[in-house]
């Protein structure tokens, strides 16, 4: 092909490329239209507020305009990293609770979904799946009330039962003792999110070609062999994706959950980064400091997300991006 014709071809390719893009967009215009509200919502509620990060670099006072405070540089960050002794136990609590929650939630959901799939009585499996999903809709305030009704030291139903049976002398102070905090939060997270995670795994299982199971049967594979060699390998990519996505949230917590459960007796093991941000930002009106903590948390979360994504990609060829 001559240079001239190749140049003509490249010009035509450019024009052809942009018109191809336009054609594709035009063909999918209704889908894009449906996407607009979600896109706008994300842009307005998630990205536009990032302008407020400016507060972390200023000496903002409540009542000032957003850009009204004097510029102070990295003073708030230095205050958090070098002057405050709080970071240690906050990061410890956040990582322990979230890390264990992620691992246990994914593992339990994976096992449960495999077991549900193996249940021969399908209506029963559906019933169990529905029941497992209900806690997802219970708010943390209701959850606290349930835990209180069951485990209040003197009046909790389970504590009262155990004391009356002579199993224990005094009720477990689950809500008012630092030693139970981590276990309590992990168990409650498991209770609340198992059904939701199961659904994701069950959807993946339903997408596994039946021919694989039939071939395995023909080869004489038993039930456990099918689970080990077919079901689990097909679930690993989904588990990996869940792990990657949840790793980005490892420094974040549901504020509502910790707001109701944190109190004067268990703060050592219950107070997490988001509660700290809430305390300084909204209770003590120290918006610049709280914003700085939030920024650091976000940046570290992004780094963790990228590292986990890369690691998982190397190990299993699965990644989110």
């Amino acid at each position, binding site marked *: 092909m001559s240079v001239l014709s190749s140049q003509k071809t490249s010009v035509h390719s450019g024009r052809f490329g942009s018109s191809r893009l336009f054609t594709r967009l035009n063909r999918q215009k*209704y*889908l894009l*239209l*449906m996407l*607009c*509200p*979600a896109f*706008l*919502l994300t842009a307005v509620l998630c990205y536009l507020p990032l302008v407020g990060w400016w507060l972390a670099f200023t*000496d903002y*006072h*409540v*009542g*000032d305009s957003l850009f009204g405070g004097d510029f102070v540089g990295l003073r708030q960050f230095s205050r958090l990293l070098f002057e405050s*002794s709080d970071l240690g136990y906050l990061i410890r609590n956040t990582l322990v609770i979230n890390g264990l929650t992620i691992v246990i939630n994914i593992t339990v959901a994976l096992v449960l979904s495999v077991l549900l799939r193996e249940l021969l009585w399908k209506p029963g499996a559906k019933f169990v799946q529905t029941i497992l999903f209900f806690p997802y809709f219970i708010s943390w305030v209701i959850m606290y009330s349930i835990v*209180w009704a069951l485990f*209040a*030291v*003197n*009046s909790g139903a389970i504590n009262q039962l155990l004391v009356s049976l002579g199993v224990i002398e005094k009720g477990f*102070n689950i*809500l*008012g003792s630092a030693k139970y905090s981590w276990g309590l939060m992990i168990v409650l997270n498991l209770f609340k999110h198992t059904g939701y995670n199961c659904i994701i795994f069950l959807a993946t299982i339903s997408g596994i070609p039946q021919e694989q199971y039939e071939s395995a049967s023909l080869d004489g594979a038993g039930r456990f062999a099918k689970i080990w060699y077919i079901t689990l390998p097909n679930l690993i990519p989904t588990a990996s994706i869940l792990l990657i996505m949840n790793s980005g949230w490892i420094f974040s917590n549901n504020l509502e959950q910790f707001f109701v459960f944190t*109190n*004067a*007796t268990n*703060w*050592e093991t219950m107070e997490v980064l988001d509660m700290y941000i809430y305390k300084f930002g*909204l*209770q*003590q*009106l*120290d*918006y610049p400091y709280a914003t700085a903590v939030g920024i650091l948390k976000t940046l570290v979360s992004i780094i963790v997300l990228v590292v986990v994504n890369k690691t998982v990609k190397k190990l299993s060829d699965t990644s989110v991006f």
Partner: protein
Amino acid sequence: MKHKVNDTLGRVLACALTVVLAASLSACSKGEADPGGDSGTDDGVYTVQVLVPAGAAYPTKSSETEVGKYILDTFGVDFEYIQYAGDMREKQSLMLASNDYGEMQQMQRQDIVKSYINAGKLIELDPYLEDMPEFTARFVKNIPYWRLNSDDGKLYNWELEIPSESLDICDLLVRSDLLEEANWELPLTTDEWIDFLREAKENHPTTESGQATVGMTMPGAESYGVQGILPILYEKGDTYLPISNDSYTFNVKTRKFEDYFKNPEVKESFQFFNRLYREGLLDEECFTDTNDRTIEKAQQGVPLSIWYVSFDSAQINEGLVSNGLSDLQYVQVPIQSTSQVAAGQKRMLREEVSRPYASWGLTDKCKQPEKLLEIIEWASSDEGQIMMRSGFEGEHYTVEDGKRVPTDALLKAGTDSVAFMKETGVCVSSTASILAGLPIFQTRAADGQFHGLLYEPVYKDEATLTDRQKEVYQNLGWESSQAWWEQNGTLVSAGAASSVSIDPTSDLGKTAAKMVEVRTKWSARMVLAESEQEFEQVYSDAMAEYDKLDHQSVIDELNRLYSEIPEELR
């Protein structure tokens, strides 16, 4: 043809879905009532939206009450109450930060008042004082303290619930059946109360319904719980004035601010609760109980005593009566530390000239400040205050020989004040009035009687106490429910001490906040120590962490600010 119809249908559905999604987004964002105020004038009525704490007493609009109707007919103003169930201080700050505050705004404590003033959001009231002789005369002693909130000495806010000639006491509630069993011998010191409760718990290990009783409880989960009322034994003596739940107390003898956590009487308070815990008398749920939960337990007779929250006694006793447990009704009794009694200390009764917690102001969003100030002027007068406190002549009181005499309707309201207030707008008790923002105080009118008739000694106990409570006080040998405090108390004016505060956003302000945080965090650990040695160790560890903060600079700054206040105001 069919393919084309399907395509068209698909497009129509896609567009319709997009519209629905967009509409639902818009609807979600308008779900909450706007407490920032979108007040308006409708048919000549000036409606003002006011943010108030959530409570059963509040109607939707003030005109639903008799007093509110009078205000509407006379001044053409109706107040619309937007209830808020969360932390009010937080909300007030958020409203300022988002420029979404009301026309008439509550501000709890000086730091928030100063924030609003410094942001230029409050209307200066001085130009209007000429037309407000009642307000100026009524608050002649208080206005100089209110001016201390602003750097320019101008007046931007007013405060409720002052001046007050009535005693506002919060000591200890105890089940009356226990006093009867003890032949009406009343303990006083913390040691005596521990012995009393120990014996009472042995005699009453469970309630009639089988629930385990507890020696003492309190609403520790409330914001004022661990931080405020747990260490407050110091206020039962005559030396330290309770200013706030912050990092300092005020020594009325030396007229100086002192460190809160380092106060020996605060340590005594922690020791008292630790002893209660070690003796198995302290309700371990108290750290996670809200006020509602404490009331719920008390209405079953579970706690043998309740720390501090005497303002709940009417509601608690009402519940006990309806549960058929009338004999268990709680009465308020005094408590002092053993060392306070040994030192012969009287019980301090605080006279407030400033109450920053109940501050209100008109903001720059106020459309008709003159109209609202007219109502405030009226509320400051005898006529307005009598109506707000005693109701309407003929219906709630009659006048005989120049003196107001309460009718049965008003006397009945003494034991059912919340429902009465919701219907009439009349605040007969010391609880905050539902006519939020309007001056409410407790002094004597020109006729020599209290504005609130039920505060007259001859009517007070008659109207507000149940028969059981009257019986208890009679058996204790008291002339009235406040007799002990009247005989053993000493009235101390807080002066300007209540008005001093450090800018919370300054470095010292942040240190002060940290001081409170450290104290609060270590409080529960001290109380839950398993032995005296462990208590001392935990206390020592707490002090070691506390000493890392520059707390003395905070106290020095407070004393410096106090010394700059004119002598006559101190």
